[in-house]
């Protein structure tokens, strides 16, 4: 083994250690959630978290299903709305404008990415909700949550997609242009497929952000713990559940709130597992395809 390889091996071990730290944070947090949920799971039993008549912990009712539905509806809605818009913005910045305009768009996205949830929530509560209330009271609803969340995750998806699109080799684009393909055809058949892995990463990050968003959601979704019967109905997400009640909850109630946190973690793990399976089957999983 020569010096080069030894150096490389050492680098690799060092890097592996770092990555291990990153991975163990997740394990640590999930373990913490589990630990804090145990008292409630023990006293109440896991089944009741699915079958109790409602969520009223002070009175002994612990059904989390309405909140699970709330989280899913709001997250899926936000991603469905934001992903196409974000990818379109990224494509726009890379292929349809140049120079100053392109830079401006990127600055806008970067700034949007750093606006605190509180500001989005405030804007949502004071501007969006009254506007929605005129169409369908009370205004704080699934729709408000979807719109605000989509706004929050759009920059992340757009910026990561932009990086991926920027990596499409010039040669391919020029070749396609030489063959007489129109701009949209080039984007559709060359750029997007090549950048697919990066775009998916962006969408996954955005979905994660949407799943975990707390502050803004609490301010605009109405927080009523019931399964929504329309887009104008109020809804409560798992994150809002914890945020609303944790500060004033004691003992059993507190532990039950950790259970809803655990459910969210399980949901996320499930989502990631599904994406992992899909990525495996299509061979698009990051890492270089030919590691030298």
């Amino acid at each position, binding site marked *: 083994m020569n010096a080069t390889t030894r150096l490389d091996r050492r*680098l690799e071990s060092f890097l592996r250690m770092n*990555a291990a730290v990153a*991975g163990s944070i997740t394990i640590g947090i999930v373990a913490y959630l589990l630990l804090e949920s145990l008292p409630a799971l023990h006293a109440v039993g896991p089944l009741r978290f699915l079958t109790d008549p409602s969520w009223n912990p002070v009175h002994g009712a612990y059904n989390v299903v309405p909140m699970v539905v709330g989280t899913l509806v709001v997250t899926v809605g936000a991603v469905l709305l934001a992903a196409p818009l974000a990818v379109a913005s990224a494509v726009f910045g890379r*292929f349809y404008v140049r120079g100053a305009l392109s830079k401006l768009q990127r*600055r806008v996205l*970067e700034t949007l990415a*750093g*606006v605190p949830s509180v500001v989005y929530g405030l804007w949502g509560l004071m501007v969006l909700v009254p506007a929605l209330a005129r169409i369908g009271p009370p205004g704080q609803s699934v729709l408000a949550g979807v719109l605000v969340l989509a706004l929050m995750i759009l920059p992340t998806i757009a910026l990561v997609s932009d990086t991926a699109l920027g990596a499409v080799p*010039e040669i391919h684009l020029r070749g396609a242009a030489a063959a007489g393909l129109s*701009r949209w055809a080039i984007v559709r058949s060359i750029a997007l497929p090549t950048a697919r892995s990066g775009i998916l990463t962006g969408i996954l990050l955005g979905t994660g952000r949407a799943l975990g968003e707390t502050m803004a959601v609490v301010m605009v979704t109405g927080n009523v713990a019931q399964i929504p019967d329309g887009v104008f109905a109020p809804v409560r997400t798992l994150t809002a559940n914890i945020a609303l009640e944790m500060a004033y909850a004691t003992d059993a109630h507190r532990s039950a709130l950790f259970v809803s946190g655990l459910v969210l973690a399980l949901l996320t793990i499930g989502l990631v597992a599904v994406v992992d399976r899909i990525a495996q089957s299509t061979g698009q999983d990051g890492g270089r395809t030919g590691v030298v």
Partner: protein
Amino acid sequence: MWFRLRPSSWFDPAWRWRVLSAPHDAVAHLAMWSASLAVTGVFVWILIDVLSHGASHLSLELLTAAPADAGRQGGIAPILVSTVLILAVCMAVAMPLGLCSAVLLSEFSRSTSGYGRFVRRSLDVLAGLPSIVFGLFGYAFFCHALGLGFSILSGGLTLACMVLPVLIRSVEAALQAVPDDIQTASAALGLSKTTTIRSLLLPAAAPGIAVGLILGIGRALAETAALLFTSGYVVRMPGSLFDSGRALSVHIYDLAMNVPGGDGMAYASALVLLGLLLGMNALATTLVQRWQKSKGLVFG
């Protein structure tokens, strides 16, 4: 020298013919413009709203004085200092850790390697956990178990946990974006992987790394719940990293949601935060560009 595909101009008749002759091209064109305008439009809407509520409270005093009357008057100077310190701790921990992990994921693990998959998936799960859970975990682990108490250190470390997934995944995407040719050429020349990564790959991926940094900073500045439980609520000018200090986002939340009559100052503080964000982003971009140039490579 790499060339950027310069989008054709409207004045090029050949291009114009191509656009107009294929209807789905024109539709796509329209769609792209609408999407961008919609996004920029909402941003302007929010900005105008924040400006209209907060501009009247903007002044030099805001940036230099301490809060008075529960924050309804005075300024946010100690809070700005605390915020920058928390950000610094967060980045100091997350950057090296994140960069190393991203390099590992991108360069050292095959697509199907179990270890790489595990780390990548754990990061994806981490990205989806609610900020309040990070706050509770940070409180239990950093404040309690490690005995750091309510402090800027606890806050920064907790934030680092939150920022890590975004940082790692976007840097990884940036590294992937660098063409494989560099790897091949390096190997042909007999360079070690370490040299390849340090002198070629990282500089080449610099713009994307900058994006990762910016997303990370953005996430960190935007975080409220996690910091409330870890770095705390105290408005005093911090004397050390072990002191409790209120972050700007926490202050905005407090003024808007806890202190009656605090709305105006909340919006003004939000404007300052946006300014801070723009400043940080510009700093990050310039630093990365400077570093990239120092390596003698300028790409794209």
